[in-house]
């Protein structure tokens, strides 16, 4: 099914202490990308700012708005940090546009990124752009684009799917793994995770030379472990949950804090039915190259590097 040519696009971006120049650069690239959409598509970008003080002033917004040829900008300073998941949900709440683009503020689009995303977009499935300079090493089917999960860095979502799933899980996964969780819930509901093979988005990531993995801050490392455990609980992977707890107890100095945070957020988990989980895993296994889900978590968490190799994970799921 092809997309409707007259549908509109809303782009949702949550800011947190981002530099103005970085945001401006992202906007200029986005504007150039919108201009390449055929047929012409109306696009609006909404910023929700979780920073301690406004990242953009009214003058900034006016200034950059004047440079935009195809993009309408809305900026809101929230004066509280409601985190990424709830922020995106607030921005997308009751949106009238047919398609939503969840975008990171530290991204830069190529001029053809949006047009390539829309080539894959069919109004039913989720479509993400490939990231560079460090690309996720999850495989996707070169013909269908089907993959095992979606990253939320530059993700095109049909509005009706987003609304029917109540958006991201802000209670349990406020910042990390919310995209993996969202795409899995979408899969269960019948919307597949797709990669647009020719759509690329720059995402500012670096390597940690010591650990040979993507560099993460202390908070990101902590949140990754917490999110991983919560995902295991949410999707009822009990045996794996127990093993991970055991491993963290032996190897992680912040084990107590992790466990405390997991307990706190676990009370809000809406557990997913086992049958659906099973079918999700099977569809991943049968559909493409095999599962590489949670790879993002592994990539962003140096401590899990040795435990959750792609191969082992595949074997674990298949068994």
């Amino acid at each position, binding site marked *: 099914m092809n997309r409707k040519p007259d549908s509109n696009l809303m782009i949702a971006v949550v800011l947190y202490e981002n530099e103005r120049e970085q945001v401006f*650069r992202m906007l200029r690239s986005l504007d150039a990308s919108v201009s390449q959409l055929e047929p012409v598509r109306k696009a609006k970008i909404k910023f929700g700012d979780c920073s301690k003080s406004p990242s953009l002033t009214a003058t900034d917004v006016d200034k950059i708005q004047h440079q935009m040829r195809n993009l309408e900008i809305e900026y809101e300073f929230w004066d509280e940090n409601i985190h990424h998941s709830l922020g995106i949900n607030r921005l997308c709440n009751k949106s009238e546009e047919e398609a939503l683009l969840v975008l990171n503020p530290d991204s*830069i689009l190529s001029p053809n990124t949006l047009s390539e995303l829309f080539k894959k977009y069919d109004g039913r499935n989720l479509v993400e752009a490939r990231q*560079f*300079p460090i690309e996720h090493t999850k495989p996707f089917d070169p013909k269908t684009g089907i993959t095992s999960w979606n990253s939320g860095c530059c993700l095109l979502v049909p509005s009706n799917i987003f609304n029917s799933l109540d958006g991201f899980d802000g209670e349990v996964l406020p910042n990390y793994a919310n995209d993996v969780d969202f795409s899995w819930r979408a899969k269960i509901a019948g919307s597949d995770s797709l990669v647009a093979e020719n759509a690329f988005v720059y995402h500012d990531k670096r390597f940690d*030379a010591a650990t040979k993995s993507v560099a993460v801050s202390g908070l990101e490392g902590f949140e990754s472990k917490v999110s991983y455990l919560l995902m295991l609980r949410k999707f009822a992977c009990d045996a794996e949950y127990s093993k991970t707890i055991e491993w963290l107890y032996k190897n992680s100095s912040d084990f107590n804090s992790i466990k405390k945070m997991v307990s706190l957020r676990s009370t809000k988990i809406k557990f997913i039915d086992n049958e659906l989980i099973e079918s999700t895993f099977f569809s991943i296994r049968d559909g493409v190259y095999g599962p590489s889900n949670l790879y993002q978590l592994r990539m962003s968490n140096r401590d899990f590097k040795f435990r959750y190799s792609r191969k082992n994970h595949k074997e674990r799921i298949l068994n």
Partner: protein
Amino acid sequence: MSKNRNSSIRIELCDEETQFSEYEDDFSSVDGTEVWRRINVFLKQIDLDNIGKSLEIFELTEMAPQKILESNGVHYKIKLKCMNRSESGAGSPLFTVIIRTTGNRNERLERALISLLNQDFKNFEILLVLSSTSEKMFADLRAFVNSLWFSSEVRLATVWCNALGRVAPLNTGLLCAKGDYVTFLDDDDYALSNWLQNFSGAIASVDAPTVLRQQVACANSDIESLEMNVNDQERPLPQVKDISFEYTQPWSFFKTLSGNFTPIMAMAVPRNLTDLGEMIFFDSNIELAEDWDFLLANCMRYPLVDIPEIGAVYNRLEANSRNLDGASEWEYSFRYVRQKIDKGNALLRNGWLTDYLQSQQRDTHTLGLKEIEDNNDLLNQQLLLRNQELESLLSIKEDERVLTEIERKKTEIQLRKLLRRSPLLMIRKNSLWRSLMKECNYE
């Protein structure tokens, strides 16, 4: 290499309105590299004070030979835009990033350029060198670059190298570069945002021109995921199968003699600012392993700082290694560079490698990479002993003012002996060492 026929080049040095200087030359019988060399010489001769402006950096914005038909033949006109130092990051060294391209994969080039937009270090220029004999391809590339939304946000010049191959555009870039340091990025690779910052941060710790080396991650692509019957331009970038870190090993000069562990984007070299004749160029006798040879040549002349940070991603396609022509070209290039190493150079005496392997009762006629690697540990042990010996000599001589003339002479004699015995000496920062090397014509 094709020649410019019946043509001259007129170079105008100007800002938006005023022309400051002009240079015209007959290039009817010279190749593209020579054209750029002469342009470079001309630029160095300009007396900035006479221009009446405090212009220190010349940004090449219009390197496209603009054809002007005149009665006495075809002329080419090249405009140079002047730039104030204050506009371009005063105080920090200027880096030139040379990107070679064949002009047939602009979308990949675009991503390489985007990866440069977000650099932490801002004082750099980009020289995009097209290797092509087609004037139309150059016009197309310029049109493409000018159409990019960020074209006005970066210092980017497009340069035409009127020759094919991988090495010629690099040398053209070196001639056109204005930076204090030059580094390289291929049009299908990516810089991380800390790439140039890693280089510039290392310069702060040295007081002399230095070769800079950092680490590079390798994105290995799954070529089987592609339809192979589409042309290169239409073919999407293959999926990244895994990311490996073989180019993140610490620097070892000796290991580098056995093979290349430093991709081209992992190095930055000082550009000789005073004498063009002293510049080190890529060896045009080889088409592959040119970066290996270039790195060796540079670190024979300059000390090297190894930066323990990963600053770029090398996109490696498995298809390259499956190409038989490429494999044969690689074998030729590898042997060529290895022979150069064995022939001797600034620090290694002629035939040292062959002699050494003979002394180890190795068959030099079948000398292969594996054998060199097998001997790596033994050689490194010897090297270590030599270096310890040298260090013990140099450690008490750091402050030359306390040396008596006799002590100095004794040290020099010992150093000379060591130099004759040692295949390689690693310590080059010491001032006494440097002066001795110079005296011995090793520089």
